[in-house]
């Protein structure tokens, strides 16, 4: 699916648009950036309830295309500015983390290989 598909499945608001037609195959849901840095391999979507600029930095280091803030978390302007600079799409959904992950999973996005 594309980043655009992700946005429509989650009924998400697009707060910063990178490449919305980028193809994404796997995703990761976590509030712990240390774990994202340690365990993510080729996941291109990050779902999180954590809201600070290091979320964007982490996504940048891992070559992720899209960050989804769950539970209606509103990212601050410095988060959005950094994402725009790095060409990373930022979405906001009212769904909780588990529900948002489940919706994407049941629509064909996978979690990637076992650790």
């Amino acid at each position: 699916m594309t980043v655009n598909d992700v946005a429509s499945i989650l009924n998400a608001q697009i707060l910063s648009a990178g490449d919305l037609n980028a193809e994404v195959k796997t995703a990761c849901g976590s509030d712990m950036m240390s774990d994202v840095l340690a365990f993510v391999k080729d996941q291109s979507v990050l779902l999180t309830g954590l809201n600070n600029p290091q979320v964007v930095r982490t996504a940048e280091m891992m070559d992720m295309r899209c960050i989804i803030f769950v539970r209606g978390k509103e990212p601050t302007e410095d988060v959005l500015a950094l994402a725009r600079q790095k060409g990373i799409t930022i979405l906001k959904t009212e769904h909780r983390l588990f529900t948002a992950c489940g919706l994407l999973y049941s629509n064909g996005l996978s979690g990637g290989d076992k650790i």
Partner: protein
Amino acid sequence: MSNTLSFDYIVPGDDFTRAGEASSDVKHKLKQIGYDSDAIRRVAIAMYEGEINMVIHAGGGKAHVEISPEKIEMTLADNGPGIKDVALAMREGYSTAPDNVRALGFGAGMGLPNMKKSTDAMEIDTAIGTGTTLHMTVYAKR
């Protein structure tokens, strides 16, 4: 003529939001050069974790990066409190990070182990009360 590029960075210790700027710049430079993408990813992870560590534990520090066609060498030096027990610090899940750092999404005790895993060589030179210097190497081809 030398075909090694070197870069120096100051990692500010007072602003957590800026941690990662040096890693981001190195990543950008390596992409421009057209370096192997797996090596770029490993450098980005190791250096970013290192930057975060310097901000959390040492009040910032300095980074020196040398890029040659064969390898990337990173030296991260700080004047922080030093690491009391390196073997313990290398254990996954062991962390001395305060709770406010965990609230920011770090401090899971994965930093140093992940840096070691991501690089081809890592040396830690540390002295209590003096500081810590980390030297890491990533080869273009693993």
